[in-house]
């Protein structure tokens, strides 16, 4: 399945058919620091994602200047 990561913007392929929690763990992402978005909807880390899904992992941390 395709995963879009941000800051910097990039896309990676990971194995699907498992919980979001497992995907985040494989990518080394702390679940409390990101929104996970599938088809325009937020999903929790317990949600199962399919091989055909495309998800975005969007960081929530800010600390610079705008």
């Amino acid at each position, binding site marked *: 399945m395709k995963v879009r990561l*941000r*800051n910097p913007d990039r896309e990676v392929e990971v194995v699907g058919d498992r919980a979001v929690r497992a995907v985040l763990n494989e990518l080394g992402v*702390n*679940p*409390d*620091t*990101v*929104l996970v*978005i599938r088809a325009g*909807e*937020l*999903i*929790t*880390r*317990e*949600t199962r994602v399919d091989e055909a899904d495309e998800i975005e992992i*969007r*960081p*929530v*941390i*800010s*600390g*610079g*200047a*705008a």
Partner: protein
Amino acid sequence: MKCRRCRDPAVIEVRRHNAAYCKECFLHVFREQVKRAISQYDMLATTDRILLAVSGGKDSLALWDVLLDLGYDVTGLYLGLGIGAYSTRSGEVSKAFAADRGAELIVIDLERDYGYDIPTAGKRGSRSTCAVCGLSKRYVFNRAALEGGFDVIATGHNLDDEAATLLGNTLRWQTEYIARQSPALTEKDGMVKKVKPLFRLSELETAAFAFLRGIDYVVEECPLVAGNTQLRYKDAMNAIEASSPGTKAQFFLGYLDRGLPLFRSEDSAVLTVCENCGQPTTGRFCAFCRARAQILGERLAPPDDDASVAAELADEVMPVEIFGGSA
């Protein structure tokens, strides 16, 4: 995973509350937390003219959205920092939000109105880029509020911002900063009242709120943020939070409840008037005028006054208020 309130499927989990919520219940709980913060610290009155520091990030736009829905008289203030495409995008989303909500937005531009931009300031001045950015924001927002007749300045600082700042101040035992780290600072000698109505809500929650409300916000990081001290403190807090959910809230909210009263006597700053701009300061010239003069290669005072500037520049501690992040 089910919503704690209605048992519908959840879209967001808030681990420190051991809870998850569906969209509608989360939006309700979020707004209630903002109302609770406002009430707890007597932050805002419906008759107040509120100036909201808007960056285009999730926090300030989420706060703007909530305050407008609650019926407050809120005007946004966007400060253009001149950070290339990042600032361009930040300005665009701020203006788009204001237009969409029929809200007033004041735009000030550092280069146009004060003669420098942040990338230049970071190269020419002795302060770190983030330090001079925070200083510029605090100065411009206070001055704009005074000149515009606003009663209060609101910023989008969230629980993570406040916990990270408190951690930094505590690690260095900056007791005067610690004494002033309240979500509501009263008006004092030319300093407009300042409030942080999101202090009870985490960064995850403000991001989720903005997303669920369909708010277009700047997701990208500031390109100048590399090495930012506060981000390192946030990383440290998040590492602890991962294994002990609720630690950030216990740290900051516990400080407000039990720690802050112990530091009250440390807040002894006496304010006077800057000889250059008339804004409040603790010295002859305010930090903003001194920094700006240094950036522009101008001189405010005889050479011996540079010693005080050098002493201040050696202090790299995070100030108690950073109008940074997405605030």
